[in-house]
């Protein structure tokens, strides 16, 4: 399929992103502006920005592809993405904002007063961020080749370049604005074609999907998805717990003025996400009706883009396809930008910055080292995205959630609520959860478990969160009990800062803005 309208839409989205980024550059002056938009973003803008950043390739294309391939069970993916924000809201939103931490490593160090834990957290941020960036680049390649017939690797390159250009030029101030606009682009791009396609489908006498039994029934293991009940629960757990530990989520909370505002913002986010996710399964179901078999060489992740032309051949179909392709590109760009900022921030602050500073004798300015880190943050997942990958977009993203749920989730929840968390306990839990979840992830993404594809081993490796996350919690708690002497002396002070409303705290305790 070759569609000039699609190329135009994709170019337009890339161009708008770059222009807003350049406009934002004039506004961002200091390093603080660069990272967190000078902390002056209203709740609604902030909520749009969080949602815009969060709705990734997995949401825009992946969910429809999974529903198309595996039926009703996959509806739990978007539910999990949304409930993840609810869990984040009720357990950590306000305390995280009150902690004053920019990034997850900042929080880890603040709470546990340990450089070691900080470095461990930094390594995990980079790992989770790279895992999450990978499907964004792949999705871009897929979208571009579906719409234009260009080789898939071109789309990967386009997104990687636009993201680096934008992050390097504008930083967070522009990113916040870009992200907020991106949400509304994405919502329009997913809802308008959905309404049109549904109307056409209804006028045609709403033909039922041509499908084998089990597509519309929950937990039926449609298309040989093994152990559907376990997979459903494990996926749900990963998404519910993993959201709070994603590298690009915490930094957004810093742009709220205080803890109460952070909560208000999160409620709006939950509503915006729910609104978006009502539309995504529509494409999976309608594709079952109109695209009963996938064209050779295309993955199910592409059904959203194929559907319009199948329903209304000709100009209208091309137009709707173009709108969807533009929206999908908005999704890749926004999520990849947010992740790149976070990963680059961590690489810059903890791994690269200090060394560069020493090596150049302080000649390099802070922002330059951040820019170098941004290039590094994109390079590795871009290279990996060119390799053959075994799992679908939403599944790869699901694995990133599983790693976050098994590492940062226990750290954040216990760190915020439990005063007996010790440094040793936190470290042991992070290592246990990280090694197990990352190990399972690498095994299933690289397809190393192919020999045991049939059985439980494969199911456990493909959806590891159900066993890795509880294990990480358990290790963190047990080791903390065993090492009471390693509880940081500042624990009580930190907990006051996390939980007491800002106006009660002594000025000395509040981090000055």
């Amino acid at each position, binding site marked *: 399929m070759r569609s000039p309208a699609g190329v135009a839409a994709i170019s337009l989205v890339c161009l708008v992103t770059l222009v807003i980024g350049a406009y934002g550059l004039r506004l961002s002056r200091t390093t603080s502006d660069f990272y967190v938009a000078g902390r002056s973003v209203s709740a609604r803008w902030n909520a749009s920005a969080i949602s815009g950043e969060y709705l990734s390739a997995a949401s825009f294309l992946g969910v429809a592809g999974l529903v198309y391939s595996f039926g*009703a069970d996959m*509806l739990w993916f978007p*539910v999990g993405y949304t409930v993840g924000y609810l869990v984040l809201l009720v357990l950590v939103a306000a305390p995280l904002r009150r902690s004053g931490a920019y990034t997850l490593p900042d929080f880890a160090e603040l709470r546990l007063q340990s450089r070691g834990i900080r470095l461990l957290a930094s390594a995990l941020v980079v790992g989770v961020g790279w895992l999450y960036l990978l499907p964004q680049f792949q999705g871009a390649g897929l979208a571009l080749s579906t719409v234009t017939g260009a080789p898939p690797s071109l789309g990967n390159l386009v997104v990687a370049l636009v993201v680096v250009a934008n992050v390097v030029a504008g930083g967070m101030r522009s990113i916040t604005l870009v992200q907020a606009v991106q949400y509304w682009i994405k919502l329009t791009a997913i809802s308008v074609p959905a309404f049109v396609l549904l109307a056409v489908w209804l006028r045609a006498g709403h033909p039922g999907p041509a499908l084998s039994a089990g597509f519309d*029934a929950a937990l039926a293991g449609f298309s040989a998805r093994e152990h559907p009940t376990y997979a459903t629960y494990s996926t749900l757990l990963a998404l519910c717990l993993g959201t709070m530990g994603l590298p690009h989520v915490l930094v957004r909370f810093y742009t709220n003025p205080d803890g109460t505002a952070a909560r208000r913002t999160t409620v709006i986010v939950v509503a915006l996400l*729910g609104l978006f996710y*009502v539309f995504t399964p529509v494409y999976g179901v309608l594709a079952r009706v109109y695209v009963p078999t996938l064209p050779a060489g295309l993955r199910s992740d592409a059904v959203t883009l194929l559907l319009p032309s199948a329903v209304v051949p000709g100009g209208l179909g091309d137009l709707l396809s173009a709108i969807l392709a533009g929206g999908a590109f908005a999704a890749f760009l926004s999520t990849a930008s947010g992740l790149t900022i976070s990963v680059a921030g961590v690489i810059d602050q903890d791994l690269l910055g200090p060394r560069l500073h020493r090596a150049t004798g302080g000649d390099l300015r802070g922002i330059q080292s951040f820019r170098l880190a941004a290039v590094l943050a994109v390079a590795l997942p871009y290279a990996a995205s060119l390799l053959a990958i075994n799992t679908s977009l939403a599944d790869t993203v699901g694995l990133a959630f599983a790693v976050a749920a098994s590492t940062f989730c226990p750290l954040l929840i216990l760190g915020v609520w439990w005063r007996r968390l010790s440094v040793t306990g936190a470290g042991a839990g992070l290592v246990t959860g990280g090694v197990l979840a990352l190990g399972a992830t690498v095994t299933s993404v690289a397809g190393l478990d192919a020999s045991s594809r049939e059985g439980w081993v494969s199911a456990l490796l493909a959806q590891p969160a159900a066993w890795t996350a509880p294990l990480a919690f358990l290790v963190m708690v047990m080791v903390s009990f065993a090492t009471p002497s390693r509880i940081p002396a500042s624990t009580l002070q930190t907990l006051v800062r996390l*939980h*007491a409303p800002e106006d*009660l705290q002594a000025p000395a*305790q509040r981090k000055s803005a």
Partner: protein
Amino acid sequence: MTDSPGGLSERPTHHPTDHPTDPPPDRLPGATTPPRRVRVTSPRRDARRPAARRPASQELVEQTALGEVYLSALLRAQLRLSLAILLGVGVVVFGLPALLALVPGLRAVQVGPLPLPWLVIGILIYPLIVVAARIYVRQSGRIEREFADLMTQRWPHR
């Protein structure tokens, strides 16, 4: 006399007088040099207000044992609320797959054009999550306001 750091002045056991002309009661007869006269004042005389109570938030900030009690109370109240919300949503979200697994008949029920699982999981669950989030924000805000009131009152008992 100077105020003690805590602001709670020690009250003298007998009421002293501050008329300088009165002979001090402990003056020994026949002593050549009288002991230096000391001006003694009652804390009540020039008391502009009852001895200043520290606001409870000070206990919190200064990490006293009392502050720890306050913090525990706040943590408990917030955690109880969070767990209640999570339990409510968790019963629905994690209970639905179990319900569908245990009662397979439900999977085939049609509501208008949609099968029941699609209607519930695909659409109805989202407003529910938003409502839960709103309830949480309202209640947690209330807990914090009550806590702030408690902390800023001079007399903590109501």
